[in-house]
């Protein structure tokens, strides 16, 4: 399969403003993500997984190393890469309709086309009927649906998702996970997804491959081939599901406990 997103020797250092000491937060990271692949990245808090996603998005410049999309160097955000944020980042002064139209308006698509396209994607994420609501009038799940529609309206080939369901309750999350898999598509029309999560269960349910990260510095500790057959409605009940979830937990447990301890210090 063709490689869509790659990175070589990515690192990110931060300077401690008080001591002047240089801290390596991330890397070096090498990754290759195929066209149409769903890659989940799991790791304890503070492992730099969001930073890595920011580098692919073109929002964060790495200290060293390079990231590529279809062989082209990533230097800034691009329309072929849509980004979903954990806090949704919806514009609070715009209705659902206008939020979804935002990217089209930035590209000067005509008002009629904008309207129709936005309607279609709002329906696609099951938010029809809420077009005239403001974000503060929506539940968390509906806000994330709106954010997803806004990204999809630009028809990106790659979806970069930064813990998009972390703030949702368990039931909403499961429903949205299934909707996301539908939107992901099938066969040759599948988008490429990089999905950051701290939920192992979520990663095993959604992904084709799972990159397991360690903390301080953030490194890819293991790459797990997560080849459960699709569609996966009953996969959570399979003993292999529990086994794989546990296997990943064993990999990150020490780091997770350490991360927890350092926040309690």
């Amino acid at each position, binding site marked *: 399969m063709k490689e869509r997103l790659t990175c070589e020797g990515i690192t990110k250092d931060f300077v401690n403003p008080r001591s002047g000491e240089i801290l390596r937060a991330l890397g070096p990271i090498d990754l290759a993500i195929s066209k149409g692949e769903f890659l989940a990245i799991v790791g304890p808090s503070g492992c730099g997984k969001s930073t890595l996603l920011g580098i692919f998005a073109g929002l964060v410049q790495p200290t060293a190393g390079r990231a590529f999309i279809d062989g082209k160097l990533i230097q800034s955000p691009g329309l072929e890469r849509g980004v979903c944020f954990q806090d949704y980042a919806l514009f*609070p002064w715009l209705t659902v309709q206008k939020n979804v139209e935002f990217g089209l308006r*930035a590209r000067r698509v005509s008002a009629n086309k904008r309207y129709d396209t936005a309607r279609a994607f709002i329906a696609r994420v099951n938010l029809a009927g809420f077009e005239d609501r403001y974000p503060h009038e929506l539940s968390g799940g509906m806000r994330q649906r709106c954010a997803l529609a806004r990204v999809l309206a630009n028809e990106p080939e790659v979806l970069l998702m930064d813990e998009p369901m972390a703030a949702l309750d368990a039931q909403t999350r499961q429903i949205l996970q299934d909707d996301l898999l539908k939107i992901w598509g099938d066969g040759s029309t599948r988008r490429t997804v990089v999905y950051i999560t701290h939920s192992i269960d979520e990663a095993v349910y959604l992904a084709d491959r799972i990159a397991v990260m360690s903390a301080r510095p953030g490194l890819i500790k293991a790459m797990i081939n997560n080849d459960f057959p699709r569609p996966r409605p009953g996969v959570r009940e399979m003993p292999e599901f529990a086994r794989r979830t546990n296997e990943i937990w064993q990999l990150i447990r020490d780091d997770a406990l350490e991360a927890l301890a350092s926040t309690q210090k």
Partner: protein
Amino acid sequence: MTSGRVQRIWRFVALPLLLIAIWQIAVSHYVPASSLAPTPTGVIRGFVELLTSGELLAALEQSLLRIAFGFTFALALAIVIAVLVATWKPFAYMVDPILETFRPIAPIAWVPMAILWFGTGTYAAIFIVAYAAFFPIYVNTLAGVRNIDRGLLNAAKTLGARPTFIARAVIIPAALPSIILGARLGMGLAWAAIIAAEMTVGSKAGGGGSGGIGQMMFVFLLYRLDLRYIVVGMISIGLVALLIDAIFQLIGRRVSPWLNRGN
């Protein structure tokens, strides 16, 4: 009219009525008749006189126009400069210290300069008004732009927005509640500066209404020593400014629906 409405109106007028009553009693009982202290009844008579002669409305119209021009100019300039200062570091280093140096200088201090630059008349008055209104709008807009959620800017960038579109479609709307707060304060200072501003209009208007409300008050003080008319001027300014502020608050609620869930 519902009883709730009556109650609200009553709450609105109760304190002013009480203060006016105290004022009337104080002046008529405790101040010698020879003094110039005006009474509420005298002020009301003065108000009627100025209103029927047309002087008051003509003066208010003049001042309102000067304020409208000066304020609009200040608003546009303050927003553009604040957005540039907040988003473009070299510009901030050059411009912000200069503006902060000018900020504490009172508008009235500029009267001679304004006359020197613009001559006596409306242009000088507009300059003083714009100067007075500029700073609160600038300071508040700057704070508003600096406090924008970085996530919104990142979202806009990943959705394909270019810097000018981000400024127009994200930065300005996100900072709008702060801009409107600055505009409310700026409008208040514009009215506060109207007397200073209309000192520049000079006596060519002859002390009549057409010099504006500030000029009118100034002339009544200097040439007629009639404090009643000055109080009429004060109250008129207060009422017009109150009305304008109410309009701004209404606009503020309209443009930031996410900020007033409670009411």
